[in-house]
């Protein structure tokens, strides 16, 4: 149930995730054997989640696009090393976290308000309140992007992606205690950022 909730929160189509485990394993085996059509199926199943996670980790959609491409290229390159008895999703999330960390180190973050405004998640019933909402979300993304790498990854995976602390610890190769500590520090920093923003609004 928790997994379904996490998937829903991540914006994955329920239909795609309902795929039978055996079927997924077959697809993976074919992809490992070099079948690009099978790899395309894996890509279709997970591209939305990887893109959303990259966006949340990097804070802007352009970098997230590049990061997503890099994630799947790495996945294709190292697919033969993947153990098909393990969940492919966790593997892709781990690659995404690593790729986004590299992107964060080597690239200047770009602000792109224009692209945020094009998002379909934003309705146009009340343009003024929508703009305020977009601004708040941008501020929030900026605050998240300003967190140190490990805190950001733990916070995004736990509080936005909705994974359990144990799952986050597994993905980040860390202990649950460390993850809890990182999450609590990040929550306090985000709260302060929101307070600063609200103080500036008034």
């Amino acid at each position, binding site marked *: 149930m928790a997994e379904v909730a996490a998937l829903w*929160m*991540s*914006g994955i189509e329920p239909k795609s995730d309902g795929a039978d485990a055996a079927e997924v394993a077959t697809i993976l085996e074919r992809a*490992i*054997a*070099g079948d*690009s059509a099978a*790899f*395309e199926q894996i*890509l*279709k199943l997970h*591209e*939305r989640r990887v*893109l*959303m996670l990259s*966006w*949340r980790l990097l804070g802007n*959609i352009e970098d997230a*696009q590049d990061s*997503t*491409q890099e994630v*799947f*290229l790495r996945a*294709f*390159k190292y697919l*033969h*090393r993947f*153990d098909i008895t393990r969940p492919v999703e966790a593997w892709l999330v781990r690659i995404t976290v690593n790729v986004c960390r590299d992107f964060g180190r080597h690239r200047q973050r770009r602000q792109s308000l224009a692209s945020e405004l*094009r*998002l*379909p*998640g934003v309705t146009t019933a009340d343009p003024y309140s929508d703009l305020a909402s977009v601004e*708040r*979300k941008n501020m*929030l*993304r900026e605050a998240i992007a300003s967190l140190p790498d490990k805190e950001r990854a733990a916070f995004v995976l736990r*509080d*936005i992606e*909705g994974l*359990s*602390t144990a799952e986050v610890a597994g993905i980040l190769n860390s202990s649950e205690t460390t993850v*809890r*500590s990182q*999450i*609590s*520090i990040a*929550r*306090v920093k*985000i*709260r302060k950022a*929101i*307070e600063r923003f609200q103080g500036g609004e008034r």
Partner: protein
Amino acid sequence: MSCGYSEERLALWMDSSEMDLSITEIRERDRHLASCVACRDVIAKLRESQSFVKTLRADSVNSAVLVQVHAHVMDRVSELKRPPAWVIQVERSLLFGIRRKYALAGFGSLVLAGCLILGIFWKVQMHEQTRVQIPPVLAPLVAQVSDPVVVNSSAGSPPKAAPIGRVKRTPSRKPVMVDVSIPAEPPQKIMVKLLTDDPSVVIYWSLD
């Protein structure tokens, strides 16, 4: 906080439904929050900010962006060359599923350890026995000696001259071989006693 609880700790107390708290912690939290207004206030603010953070879950990306990413990935994938399936299978069976870099690191460590053991073994062998050749200056003197004289000494103890009574004399003229083991430590002078046909002539040869 004046009560001693840090804001970071309170940030973990926000929601017991998140399953991060043990029963003991939940009890401690409830007991403390019942009496501390300041902490209740901080937790209320943290919950408010968390509900704001959770609005990001509803975000979605434009389908056009996904299509673009998908096309780009598939273009690049078609360009990438991967080793054939049989190569992957052979590699997997050879490396027992271990990653190549780890397998190489393990192999390198084994080679290094082997070299180290061989080196130590060789050094020990070298110290055990050292053969000393007689220098050319002494060759004429040695040629006059009819019998081979062997002076043995064990490593670590000062060399002892061979007792005269044990020297075997034969009429044939043979080259003299002096087999001396040099003590490893501490370095000492070695004195070699050469016996000639004439019992009144004894040659002493000092080796540094």
